[in-house]
Structures are given as structure tokens and as C-alpha cells.
């Protein structure tokens, strides 16, 4: 169960990193193209560390089997085996949607890493210690953009409203624990995301308010039926994997 938890954390970082990397060469201005590429790099780096730890756990659990590597975990699992939340696999949409997705997720990831600093698994505590500094910067950057767009022109404001409408229903999944999150939390190695809800809502609404946007409210009727954490993804994940995994699937073990 704990390796499933590590895969969940790694998949979140990898898939959002991959989405952000799709902006490389297509950003609205060069500086922001570079910003998103750098955030992608941070996230993919974090996912590598997490996949390595997951591979260690899996290999220790079944010494007879051929050892798995971080690459196997990223490139050779199918969509239903991925455990990332549906939020991070959403298409980039316009700049507003990309910004809001990053803002919501980074605010969450900041709290999650913060709690995992105390994980009884030293490898996970170390990754969290390393990653939280990067995430703090992502929160800062995305918060500034939410304000700039929300409190910007009529056009940017309306695009943010569209982004809120698209992404808000996907937020509750962040705080709905999967079984592996609960078991990892009760063993002191993970965190129950439901415990992070209030601390997420406060800074998020503070920024949304400064951005003159409607505040976030948790309400059940807007809940998505999907559960990426349990492998029930939106249609988008398969397309991401088709592109990301193509080379390793077509040419197994290929390196360059």
C-alpha cells in the first residue's frame, strides 16, 4: 500500500510536469515559457526521486522478481495503473486554465510536502524537504498570475472565470483520501489529505479575493465522479501517456 502511495505522489508530479512541458516553445511570452519549463523541470525531478523510492520499496518487497526501475514505473504502466488526481491531467487550455491548475495544485502540494516532512519513511521526508522549497516558489509565481489575470482586463477576468468553472469540480478529489493514503497516514508515513482542506482553503481564497474572483466553496453537487487516485481517469490521461511512453513502448530499453 505504501508503494501505491509513493506512486500516487510521483504520478501527480510527473503528469503535471509533462503538461507544463507542453508549453515549452509555446508560451505567451518568452519569460513565461521559461517559467513553466522550469516548473516542469522541478516537478519531473521530484517525480524521479519519488519513483526511485517507490522502486526501492517494490524491489525490497519482492526480491525474487526482476528489479523495477524509475523508468519502468513512468513509461511502462497503463493509464488505469496511474494514480494521479484528475486535476493535473487536464489539458492546458488557455493561459488562465494552466495558471489556475498550477495554483490549486501547488497550494495543495505545499501542505502535503509540509506534512510529509515528518514522515516516518526517511526517504520521503528527505524528498519533501527538498521539494517544498521549489513548491513554495511555484505557489508564489502562480499566485501572482492569478491576481494579475483576475484583477486584469475584462478579457483576462472572464478567462479566469471559465478556468474556475472547468477546474473547481476537480478540487474535492485532492482532499478525498484513497485507501493507500489512509493506511500510509495511519502508519505515520503519509498524510490524510482531508486534514489539509482548511489550510488549503484559506490562502486560496485570500488570493482569489485579491484577484476579484469568486471564492472557492466546497460543495458536494459539483463533485466529479472520476477518481484518478484509484485509476479512474478522464479521457485526457491516455493521450498524455501515448505521447510520453511511445518511445519506450516502440523501442523497449532504448537510450540516447
Amino acid at each position, binding site marked *: 500500500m505504501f508503494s501505491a502511495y509513493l506512486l500516487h505522489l510521483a504520478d501527480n508530479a510527473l503528469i503535471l510536469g509533462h503538461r507544463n512541458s507542453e508549453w515549452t516553445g509555446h508560451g505567451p511570452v518568452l*519569460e513565461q515559457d*521559461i517559467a513553466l519549463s*522550469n516548473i516542469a523541470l*522541478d516537478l519531473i*525531478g*521530484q517525480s524521479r526521486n519519488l519513483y526511485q523510492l517507490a522502486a526501492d520499496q517494490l524491489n525490497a518487497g519482492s526480491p525474487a522478481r526482476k528489479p523495477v526501475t524509475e523508468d519502468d514505473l513512468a513509461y511502462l504502466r497503463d493509464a488505469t495503473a496511474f494514480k494521479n488526481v484528475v486535476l493535473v491531467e487536464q489539458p492546458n487550455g488557455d493561459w488562465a486554465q494552466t495558471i489556475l491548475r498550477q495554483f490549486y495544485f501547488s497550494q495543495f502540494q505545499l501542505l502535503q510536502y509540509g506534512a510529509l516532512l515528518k514522515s516516518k519513511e526517511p526517504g520521503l521526508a528527505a524528498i519533501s*524537504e*527538498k521539494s517544498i522549497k521549489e513548491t513554495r*516558489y511555484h505557489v508564489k509565481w502562480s499566485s501572482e498570475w492569478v491576481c494579475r489575470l483576475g484583477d486584469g482586463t475584462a478579457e483576462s477576468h472572464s478567462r479566469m472565470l471559465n478556468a474556475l468553472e472547468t477546474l473547481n469540480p476537480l478540487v474535492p478529489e485532492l482532499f478525498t483520501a484513497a485507501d493507500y493514503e489512509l493506511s500510509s497516514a495511519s502508519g505515520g508515513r503519509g498524510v490524510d489529505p482531508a486534514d489539509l482542506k482548511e489550510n488549503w482553503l484559506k490562502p486560496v481564497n485570500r488570493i482569489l479575493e485579491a484577484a476579484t474572483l469568486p471564492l472557492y466553496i466546497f460543495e458536494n453537487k459539483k463533485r466529479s465522479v472520476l477518481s484518478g487516485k484509484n485509476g479512474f481517469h478522464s479521457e485526457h490521461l491516455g493521450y498524455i501517456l501515448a505521447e510520453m511512453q511511445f518511445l519506450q513502448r516502440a523501442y523497449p530499453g532504448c537510450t540516447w
Partner: protein
Amino acid sequence: MEKEKIISILEAVMDPEIPVLSIADLGILREVEISGNDIIITVTPTYSGCPAMEVIRQEIRELLSDNGYPNVKINQVLSPAWTSEWMSASGREKLEAYGIAAPATTHSCTLDGPGTDRPDHCPLCRSRNIELISRFGSTSCKALYRCLDCLEPFDYFKCH
């Protein structure tokens, strides 16, 4: 002593993205140990996804091998997490001379307020009249600023 000799050899391993800084200047070379015939080098990345780490590892291996140390093991540690405070004083000087503003020393990577995570002055003309262009620059560890006096844009090594 042999350990000092190895450390001095490693002074030639530069960060490929900031070629005036050695890995010791940057503070990412954490430990050198000798265990029998093996040399164990411990490094830590600046950022999780820093692509320079692979190159740095390779250079450590090649350089030590050229100097008669073929058995090299390189460990990577994540904790304690690297901070820009580990940059050496001479590293900071070399950085400025290269045209990159050194990281703020009063560490305040907080979420709120303007903070002090900004360069003290323009590395080219030393004016303090500067503004942020972008929080991200050409590599993970840098942000982009502009000098309002000499009008040159410049990189800032972020406080991290």
C-alpha cells in the same frame, strides 16, 4: 593527505551552466571519503530536476579517473536540502564578476510580502535601482532582473 588532494582535484569540476563556479563553490559537493581503494563522493542537487547533475557526476568520474582514482562511487543525498547559503564567499565574488547577481544572504523565502529575495545591486554597474523581469531565468537557480540605471538585463542567482 589524500583526501585534500582529491578535494583539490575536484576544484576543477565546474557547474556546466555557470562555468565560473566549482561544485565546492556552489556547496553541492558534500563529502569526500576514502574507503580502501574506493573514493566515495557525496553530492546534493541544487534543484530536484537540475539537468546539470548528470554532467557533474560524469565529470567527477572522468577527472578522478584521469588522476589515478578509477574506483569512484557517487552518492546523492537530498537531506539536508541544499540552500544558496552554502555558496562560498569566493563563489559569490566569481558569480558577480561573471555578471550574475549573488543570492540574497538574509534568507527569507517566504510566501508573503515583497521579501528580501532580490539582488542587492546590478552586478554590472552596482546600481541598486533594479526591477524584476521574471521570477524564472535561463536555469532553475536563476531569476531575471533589469537595471534601471545602466538598462542592462541580468541574471540573479535565487535565494533558495
